[in-house]
């Protein structure tokens, strides 16, 4: 119900600065908006979190075993340690683990980026938020930078964090931080790959989001993009008996890059990694071209 207005309007006595990093407020707001609903967070981050714990345990167990079997009071290997030794023999090395972890979780990490990224621009257009944003001293690049940071944040949690956690567990589980000495470069490489992955897929998601008005449509479109490109590339590769057709799929290219950066097994991908970088770069550039064009239209309609 409307009330009689008895509040006196107070003029603003602070300073109004031209802050170049002002768009960060928009990124923060985007993160705040997305984290309001807890259920999607639990569903989307739950399985990767559980998987991280499991993989970390595997890493920890491997190093624990390497450090030596605990002597039993009876003077022989205990049944538990024998089982553990058997288990350890199945284990693979840490860097391969991170790679396998990423492969195993790729669907979930894509889900995360799609879920948090699909509505970022679509919802703004639908609700008319651009009318409010562009009446502010916010440039088009500022707007896009803020949106990109938001999607990068969630993508980062999905990809970089688990890898880092496994590395940290490995560091402390290995004797005298041997992991750090031998495989120390894995840490920055994990971060770099994770950021690259989140950045590329985030850009694609933002571009798709800018093309639709509803988040659900953008989600459908992104899954369609992912599945159709992957399916076509696999089918063609099998038909033509040529693995290079796999380069049609962004997912496959990212796996190739992952293999190269993290020294993982190359599976079916034997082409020069520079091709993959080129394709990924091309797709990212196309995504940003779309984004700039769409945001330009958005600003004009404000």
């Amino acid at each position, binding site marked *: 119900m409307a009330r009689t207005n008895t509040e006196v309007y107070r003029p603003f006595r602070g300073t109004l600065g031209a802050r170049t990093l002002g768009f960060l407020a928009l990124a923060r707001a985007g993160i705040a908006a997305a984290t309001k609903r807890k259920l999607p967070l639990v569903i989307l981050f739950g399985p990767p979190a559980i998987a991280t714990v499991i993989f970390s345990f595997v890493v920890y167990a491997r190093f624990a075993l390497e450090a030596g079997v605990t002597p039993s009071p009876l003077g022989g290997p205990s049944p538990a340690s024998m089982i553990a030794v058997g288990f350890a023999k199945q284990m693979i090395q840490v860097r391969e683990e991170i790679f396998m972890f990423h492969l195993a979780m790729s669907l979930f990490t894509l889900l995360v980026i799609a879920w948090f990224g699909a509505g970022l621009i679509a919802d703004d257009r639908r609700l008319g938020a651009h009318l409010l944003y562009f*009446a502010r001293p916010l440039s088009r690049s500022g707007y896009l930078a803020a949106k990109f940071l938001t999607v990068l944040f969630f993508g980062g949690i999905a990809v970089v964090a688990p890898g880092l956690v496994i590395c940290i567990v490995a560091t402390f589980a290995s004797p005298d931080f041997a992991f750090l000495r031998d495989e120390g470069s894995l840490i920055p490489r994990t971060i770099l790959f994770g950021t690259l992955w989140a950045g590329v897929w985030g850009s694609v998601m933002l571009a798709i989001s800018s093309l639709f008005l509803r988040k659900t449509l953008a989600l459908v479109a992104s899954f369609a993009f992912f599945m159709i490109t992957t399916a076509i590339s696999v089918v063609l590769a099998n038909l033509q008996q040529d693995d290079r057709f796999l380069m049609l799929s962004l997912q496959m290219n990212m796996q190739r890059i992952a293999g190269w950066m993290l020294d993982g097994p190359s599976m079916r991908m034997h082409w020069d990694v520079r091709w993959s970088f080129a394709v990924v770069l091309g797709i990212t550039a196309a995504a940003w071209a779309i984004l700039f064009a769409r945001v330009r239209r958005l600003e004009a309609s404000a």
Partner: protein
Amino acid sequence: MAEASSSTAEAVVVIRGLEKSYGSVRALRSLSLELAPGPTGLLGPNGAGKTTLIKLLLGLLRPDAGHATIAGCDPTTASGRLALRRSVGYMPENECSIPGLTGLEIVSTLGQLTGLTRADSLSRAHEVLDYVGIDEARYRLADEWSAGMKQRLKLAQALVHDPGLLLLDEPTSGLDPKGRRHMLDLIHDLGHVQHKSLLLCSHLLPDIERTCRDVVVLKEGAVALAGGIAELTRTDGIRVRVEVGGDRARFEQALAASGYACTPEVNGRIAIRLDGRASDADELFALAADSGASLRSIEEVRSSLEQVFVAGVANEERT
């Protein structure tokens, strides 16, 4: 914004000979306009260029030709266009909201985007939400608010950075009578008591008459008419319009006998010319008393703003 407005204060907006075209459509034709401080109404038929003018005042478009100074900034440069948005607040006509945030977060985020610090923005958001009359609802998601509250939120976000110039586009659209009244009270307060410069875009002339001092009428991309509402609606001489009760016929005879020039009007009232005889209606009361009539209402005859608008728009066609 502590200075009170005075007639010698600088114009908030000065525009000379502005041109803007979209392809073959000339949206603004050599537009010249000076917005004095205080509340001004912006009128015009659909397609007259109001939207384009608003975009110009928000720094959202670059003029093709002409000179403009908006809140001290130059809209022909990109930095000027960004800078002027710090001094302008915009209340859009269409529905607009930021998804997934509470009302308080929306106002606070927009404040930060305009250049306030985080702390300033939060306290300021509370202040403006108090001003427009939103209580605990500010902590709820704005998507769930009623239409009237969403409208008030639009005004609050326009005020968060305390701009000198406010652009209000159809601020009462969709509001029920109580909400309209409240909104008009707020706008009146902003324009007359807080001395903000307002540009009120509306098709509802009584809204403009209630809240604005000046008016600008646009037609086909140029200014057809501009001036103070009081001056524009003034008519020659002093005439009053009276509604007569009781013995109307005898009263009209008495008027004629005393030599008053009268004109009967559409809704049963009489317009009486007073000048030369008297400057007030006391004599009319005397005549009414003698005729057994009563005067139910007396008002000074002025043109209505609608008549001014229609005349202003028609004039342009002839020139």
